[in-house]
């Protein structure tokens, strides 16, 4: 498939129709309610008599709590429930991997925005006011905000286990190897936010028998359920979750936000409780992408063959563990990039600090290191006097090579091919800068430039990442397929717990079912916990794992259909049995219509699908940790106004191996979306921290790319089948985010000649006008203490 931005292909004409079979572009199964606004996100839920929940959060990044007084809040009319840590019935902490995060804080708060108490009232405003009536006696402590400081022996420990949450050390080949040509550098990635448009929300409904139903936007129903049940001290079957509409996720909904809180309130008040964060609270309500500082050294021979890579990665994990362990591991394993590196020494550290907890975001550890290793490759090429693409091609990993973590590079690993493809794609037309349509100059259409001082630059990057959950994790999905007849027509019901977060999973499930069973009518049921886990909608894994489960369940149903056919019609057909157009065929001959075959009862099969096992790394960081790898390369063309620091990304070109195109339109959407988030990290997006406090929790101060910032994306997609995966497919959601950032920054360097070792890149860096501040005498009391008892909107 070749595509240049949009529109590139005949768009399917629709309505109403169905999402087709695999390989086809069809309108989304959930499209009509989404465009009309009738699709119900968790924030849209309502029920008679429901209460509104609200959360009291710490205004301090680090403090002791001496007391929490809720009496006044409880006495307010309209307030039904006020709960603190004392009211948590079961385990008082939660966490996906390491349960270290208090459901509600006691004794300590470790980050600004940490929940301390929750309230349910009959009006959101009453709930908010009740929070203001809760008196918390804090002893403010100095926050530890620098991971390097947290790492030092003499720094106070934020957790009993110490400040080092995780360390991964990879020793590969001769860790003392030396080389003729050496480049080194220090790199930094800022704290990016997932910034999904639909803030956290959910509604908990008590069942009157001690259990609770939760309607929630999340990425993984079952891990939520298990953590909730643990903290509510209920058996898992008494906590039932149903997926509500999810307004984007990108990793930020993998951890709990108000799940336990809303259930506690609903059970305590005996009424449904809805919670809905506002945008500011959302910035405190979910984890962010880890900021990271990285020291790298690359050694190569004079021909440009890599001899060794040494890297030291220091991640800021923030106050609690979230999925930081896995991020630390991922970053360590991918720290060298998709190159054949004979010797490597990687030390990856994840630190606790008093900054906001960091966790999953699209790219998951691979993003940070890709920025560093790709910058290093450019530096090395420069030092060797080589073309940067040529250097990469020379060192590109191939199937059969060893990853630095000891695993053998599997087929297919088309690193060289995708690089060659992006290099060979036509360049965007180079318009004369002076006299050009002003709208196509840097700065968008604000036209501050007339083209003077505008320089064009081109940059390349390639990256890779694992798909799915790794290092020994039991990663699986469950699917149930029911084939029955209704009104004389066969229909497939698909049931999984996989979260549709916008990626198109429900459309794909319908496509797979239709393809496998040859039945037109498919209904994908709401995802809930009545069926087994589907795992998380993250790590680009659902098409593979839940797609695999749906395919496998369809195969099981098909097997049963054929059994029934044989029972009724014998087994002498003179041809393979197949299912098509609602019938069972033998060769081209129609044996029986499903409507007839299933008249007296449908067939239902539930299966659990697992990909091949993975293994933890040993003490030298060696092991078959990952089961699939996805590769993408990017070429960015930018224009920079050197005096004003304004940037126009002219075009992104990308080549990516996806194994098998399941739905071309959805695939393009994933690539576009991933590139946009990579562009955001390169140029715009960073949560600004000062002394452990978020400074820019709004969309005026945290800038997301608009439609005007997004360049055309030229894409080539390779279909090199993975022999182990369903249909040969590979996960696609994350690779576009990984190498787009370094490609853009490489292009900026090419245009300006500046170093640019930190993202996001600021205009003043590009223009070289960072300048010197004039120091004023600090004003006494200018950073006075913040009032202690202020409410939720810390």
């Amino acid at each position, binding site marked *: 498939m070749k595509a240049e931005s949009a529109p590139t292909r005949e*768009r399917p004409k629709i309505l109403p129709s169905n999402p087709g079979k695999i390989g086809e572009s069809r309108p989304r199964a959930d499209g009509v309610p989404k465009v009309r606004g009738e699709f*119900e996100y968790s924030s849209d839920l309502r029920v008679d008599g429901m209460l509104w929940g609200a959360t009291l959060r710490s205004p301090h990044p680090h403090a002791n709590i001496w007391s929490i007084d809720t009496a006044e809040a409880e006495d307010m009319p309209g307030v039904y429930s006020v709960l603190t840590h004392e009211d948590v019935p079961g385990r008082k902490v939660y966490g996906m991997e390491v349960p270290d995060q208090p459901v509600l804080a006691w004794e300590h708060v470790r980050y600004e925005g940490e929940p301390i108490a929750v309230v349910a009232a009959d009006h959101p405003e009453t709930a908010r006011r009740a929070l203001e009536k809760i008196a918390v006696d804090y002893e403010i402590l100095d926050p530890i905000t620098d991971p390097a400081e947290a790492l030092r022996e003499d720094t106070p420990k934020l957790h009993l286990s110490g400040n080092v949450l995780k360390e991964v050390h990879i020793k590969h080949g001769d860790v003392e190897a030396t080389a003729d040509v050496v480049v080194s550098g220090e790199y930094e990635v800022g704290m990016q936010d997932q910034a999904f448009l639909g803030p956290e929300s959910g509604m908990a409904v008590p069942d009157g028998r001690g259990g609770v139903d939760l309607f929630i936007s999340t990425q993984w129903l079952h891990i939520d359920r298990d953590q909730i049940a643990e903290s509510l001290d209920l058996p898992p079957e008494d906590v039932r979750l149903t997926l509500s509409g999810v307004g984007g*996720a990108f990793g930020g909904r993998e951890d709990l936000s108000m799940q336990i809180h809303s259930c506690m309130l609903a059970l305590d008040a005996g009424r449904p409780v809805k919670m809905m964060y506002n945008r500011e609270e959302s910035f405190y309500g979910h984890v962010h992408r880890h900021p990271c500082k990285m020291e790298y050294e690359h050694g190569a021979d004079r021909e440009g063959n890599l001899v060794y890579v040494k890297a030291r990665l220091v991640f800021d994990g923030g106050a609690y563990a979230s999925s930081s362990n896995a991020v630390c591991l991922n970053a360590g394993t991918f720290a060298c990039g998709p190159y054949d590196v004979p010797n490597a020494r990687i030390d990856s550290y994840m630190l606790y600090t008093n900054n906001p907890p960091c966790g999953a975001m699209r790219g998951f550890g691979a993003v940070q290191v890709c920025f560093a290793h790709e910058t290093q490759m450019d530096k090395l090429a420069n030092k060797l006097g080589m073309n940067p693409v040529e250097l990469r091609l020379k060192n590109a990993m191939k199937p059969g090579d060893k990853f630095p973590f000891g695993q053998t590079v599997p087929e297919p690993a088309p690193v060289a091919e995708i690089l060659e493809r992006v290099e060979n794609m036509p360049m965007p037309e180079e318009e004369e800068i002076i006299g050009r349509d002003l709208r196509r100059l840097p700065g968008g259409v604000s036209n501050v430039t007339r083209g003077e001082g505008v320089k064009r630059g081109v940059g390349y990057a390639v990256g890779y990442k694992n798909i799915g959950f790794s290092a020994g994790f039991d990663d699986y999905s469950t699917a149930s397929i029911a084939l029955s007849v209704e009104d004389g027509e066969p229909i497939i019901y698909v049931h999984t717990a996989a979260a549709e977060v*916008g990626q198109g999973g429900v459309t794909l499930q319908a496509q797979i079912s239709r393809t496998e069973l040859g039945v037109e009518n498919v*209904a994908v049921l*709401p995802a809930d916990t*009545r069926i087994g886990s589907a795992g998380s909608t993250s790590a680009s894994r659902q098409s593979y794992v839940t797609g695999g489960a749906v395919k496998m369940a369809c195969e099981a149903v098909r097997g049963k259909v054929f059994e029934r056919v044989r029972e009724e019609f014998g087994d002498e057909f003179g041809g393979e049995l197949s299912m098509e157009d609602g019938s069972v065929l033998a060769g081209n001959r129609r044996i029986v219509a499903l409507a007839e075959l299933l008249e007296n009862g449908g067939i239902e099969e539930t299966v659990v699908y697992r990909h091949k096992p993975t293994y933890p790394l040993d003490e030298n960081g060696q092991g078959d940790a990952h089961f699939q790898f996805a590769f993408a390369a990017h070429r960015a063309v930018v224009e920079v106004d050197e005096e004003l620091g304004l940037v126009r990304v002219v075009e992104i070109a990308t080549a990516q191996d996806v194994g098998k195109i399941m739905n071309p339109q959805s695939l393009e959407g994933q690539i576009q979306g991933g*590139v946009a988030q990579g562009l955001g990290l390169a140029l715009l997006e960073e949560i600004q921290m000062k002394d452990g406090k978020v400074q820019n929790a709004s969309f005026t101060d945290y800038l997301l790319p608009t439609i005007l910032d997004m360049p055309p994306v030229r894409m080539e997609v390779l279909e090199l089948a993975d022999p182990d995966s369903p249909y040969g497919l590979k996960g696609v959601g994350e690779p576009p985010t990984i190498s787009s950032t370094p490609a853009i920054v490489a292009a900026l360097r090419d245009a300006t000649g500046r170093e640019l070792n930190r993202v996001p890149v600021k205009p003043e860096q590009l223009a070289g006008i960072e300048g010197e501040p004039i120091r004023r005498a600090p004003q006494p009391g200018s950073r006075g203490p913040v009032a202690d008892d202020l409410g939720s909107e810390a």
Partner: protein
Amino acid sequence: MRQRLAGHSVPFLPPGMVSGFEFQEKHMFGDRQFAEGRMFAFPSHYLKGDGFMDAEITLRVDGEEHRLTVDTRTTILDALRESIGNTSPKKGCDHGQCGACTVLLDGRRVNSCLTLAVAHDGAEVTTSEGLSENGELHPMHRSFMEHDAFQCGYCTPGQIVSAVGMLDEVEAGWTSHATEDGENVSLSDEEIRERMSGNLCRCAAYANMLPAIKEVSDR
């Protein structure tokens, strides 16, 4: 199959309604029992004592007139979502920074989150839901579907209303910051992008919105 689904919280339509796409659209998501005809108004009794102010207003929403008693603080967005039960416009930021709440107010696109209901007594409000006529999708709805101009869909009703309002502005000859000096307004890609930049999409379905909007404007 029916038995298996007994007790499921999602009510099912009569079997006659079952057919491919349409079926899924009606069944897949959310929990309709929470949406159908259950109005939820702010209970306000307890606030009256400390200066709570109510006002009687009329809003004509998607062609239907609503008499409402609203707290003076209520925005049109909250009036739509909480008093009238129309959750088509979304609350993405509540501060005019994302565009997800865009509605047409007396024909012009605005951020309903920054618009006080009480100041617009008698106004005509159109949401994405109300762009449909006689149950038919609006051409912009269809075009967004055909071009896959959304993913999670949260910003989508706002994008669609914004695009419809924007085309009217172009029709009226309004220039944008992308219009060149002395140029007649024509809807180039740059124009559409500039004019739609008040609607954020984190999934970044932007590349598909462009042709989706263009196609409608060309008609």
